[in-house]
């Protein structure tokens, strides 16, 4: 034990971490010089000011810390910071004017093949890509504020972009004005928590081929097309807010080829379609609130074993939309504000089943121009007749135990 302690002490003495300061009256005038002089484990502290470092490459595991958000400006030509080492921390900078290119994905901070990188408390303005992780493992991206003024999809980048990464933690970032707020492709075992993604021109969150990830307590608001989750399995979505994704092809969540996932306790408000599911299998949607949406859930006949349980459906124009008569999904114990049944035995569940698909929504799905008759007298008349004698709406798409009172969610 004593020997061990001795060895440990020696190692410790041998590697004193230094602090290198950058600033006008400091030993180093540029960040590049300080980083070049630093060894693994050192801390570089940058004082307030504007630094034109071209492309700052960090190839050592150091801590880069800014005091009062010093500005690193890339003059619209370069990448602000490239991280090419494990264990780097970048804390408290203001990064701006990242280069824009259609060949290279320039980012304000780009992580190349590194582990344990921490990016916290940065402000990123007018970047092409904001924070980009390529083969990053176990990185923490936290408390960053990213804003851009993207105009079209071709000439803009994503806020937080992760590609082929693993065990990422994306926490409490605010992202706006990018192409996609958060973009995940081939990212596994990661968590997206408490982020706020709004006014992005395409998706608030774009998620592909990424298995076993969780996104929890995020707010996705007013994005061009909402949130898209595609070709993934084992996705957990809890306590998120999906709001005001209005538009021709805007969805609260677009689920495409998603398997074995959980959507629980989310709030969907004022979306054209809150959930659009296509080819989704074995998904549990539980305790969500759907309020004021055009379509609460559009579930195509290609979905199977999707269970909707204990959700509140309030003030939606259409509760459920579907495109076929095949129903392999289960609806149970939801609250539907359009339910007109009764409860004789007072157990809180309606005695007659509720059929959430209206005839008009079926017709509109098959023949979209019929939307021209939206809110006309004849369509409401048709819906009322269909409710009494169902003929065209899928016989099996029904909730056998609709709740009489909304759940406290």
């Amino acid at each position, binding site marked *: 034990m004593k020997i061990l302690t001795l060895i440990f002490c020696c190692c410790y003495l041998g590697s004193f971490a230094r602090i290198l300061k950058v600033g006008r009256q400091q030993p180093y005038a540029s960040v590049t010089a300080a980083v070049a002089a630093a060894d693994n484990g050192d801390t570089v502290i940058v004082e307030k000011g504007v630094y034109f470092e071209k492309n700052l490459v960090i190839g050592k595991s150091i801590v880069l810390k800014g005091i009062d958000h010093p500005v690193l400006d890339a003059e619209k030509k370069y990448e602000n910071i490239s991280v090419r080492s494990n264990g780097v921390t970048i804390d408290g900078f203001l990064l701006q004017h990242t280069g824009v290119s259609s060949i290279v994905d320039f980012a304000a901070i780009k992580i190349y093949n590194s582990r344990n990188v921490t990016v916290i408390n940065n402000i990123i303005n007018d970047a092409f890509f904001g924070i980009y992780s390529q083969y990053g493992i176990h990185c923490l991206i936290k408390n960053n504020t990213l804003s851009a003024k993207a105009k079209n999809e071709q000439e803009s980048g994503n806020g937080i972009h992760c590609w082929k990464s693993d065990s990422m933690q994306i926490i409490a970032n605010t992202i706006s004005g990018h192409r996609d707020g958060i973009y995940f492709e081939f990212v596994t075992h990661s968590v997206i928590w408490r982020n706020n993604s709004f006014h992005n021109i395409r998706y608030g969150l774009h998620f592909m081929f990424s298995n076993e990830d969780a996104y929890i307590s995020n707010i996705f608001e007013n994005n061009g097309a909402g949130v898209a989750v595609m070709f993934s399995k084992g996705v957990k979505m809890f306590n998120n807010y999906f709001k005001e994704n209005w538009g021709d092809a*805007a969805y609260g969540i677009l689920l495409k080829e998603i398997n074995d996932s959980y959507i629980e306790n989310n709030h969907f408000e004022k979306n054209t379609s809150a959930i659009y599911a296509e080819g989704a299998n074995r998904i549990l949607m539980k305790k969500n609130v759907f309020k004021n949406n055009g379509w609460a859930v559009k579930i195509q006949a290609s979905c199977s074993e999707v269970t909707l349980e204990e959700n509140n459906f309030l003030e939606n*124009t259409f509760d459920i939309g579907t495109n076929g008569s095949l129903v392999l999904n289960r609806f149970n114990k939801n609250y539907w504000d359009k339910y007109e049944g009764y409860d004789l035995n007072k157990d809180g569940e309606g005695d007659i089943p509720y059929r959430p698909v209206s005839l008009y929504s079926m017709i509109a799905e098959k*023949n979209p121009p019929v*939307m021209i008759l*939206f809110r*006309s*007298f004849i369509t409401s008349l048709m819906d009322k007749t269909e409710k009494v004698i169902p003929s065209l709406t899928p016989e099996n798409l029904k909730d056998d135990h609709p709740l009489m009172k909304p759940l406290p969610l």
Partner: protein
Amino acid sequence: MQKIIKYVITDILRNKIMLAYTAFLLILSFSIFSLEDSPSKGLLSMLNIVLIIVPLMSIIFSTIYIYNSAEFIELLVSQPLRRKTIWLSLFAGLAGSLSIAFLAGAGIVVLIYEPSITGLMITVTGVFLSVIFSAIAMLAAVTTRDKAKGIGTAILLWLYFSLLFDGLVLFLLFQFSDYPMEKPMILVSLFNPIDLSRILILLKMDISAMMGYTGAIFKDFFGTGTGILISFIVLLLWIVLPVGLSVRKFNNKDL
């Protein structure tokens, strides 16, 4: 002419039915806006009133009024007045008083609760529908001498515009579902003032996004300045044509 209009308007506005109509609209619109938690939801309910109740009331009231004032019309015809003047002043009086009733009953309430372009659109189309359907009623009333037949025709016309026409559109859409029907639908919607008003109002509400591709095409046409101008010209035509036809018929009518 002014004298006859004044007489007709004061006569109608004193009418108990008209007062009841105004009061009914007023109570209904106030309760709608105070019951719904958001004004935009209230607007949707107001939409139903404007599209169903206002045309029904206008067409039936106008027809009955014309038949009931047959003796008054005969008296006027015996005076040195042009038939056209008599008929147009009757129309102006009817349309004016129905519009006043609608504005007092529903228009003001809508503008108080929702002083936006959507609210304005509902009010304007409501006034237009009041005038259009009294014009159609004039045409229905002048064609037949029999009162029961005339009122029957009026009700059928209302049914046609608010229900049957949409049924036909639905039928057409299904027959031609293999073809792109969005653009022809714009043309078809011009043939029904109720449909035209509904689309104009819906496109001012944010729910237009729900209408998908169809909505986008409609917005491209009805959302632009020229589109709105064309639709209002068509609505004006819906007033001018029935009234013009009825004037011609009235000129040659054997009273």
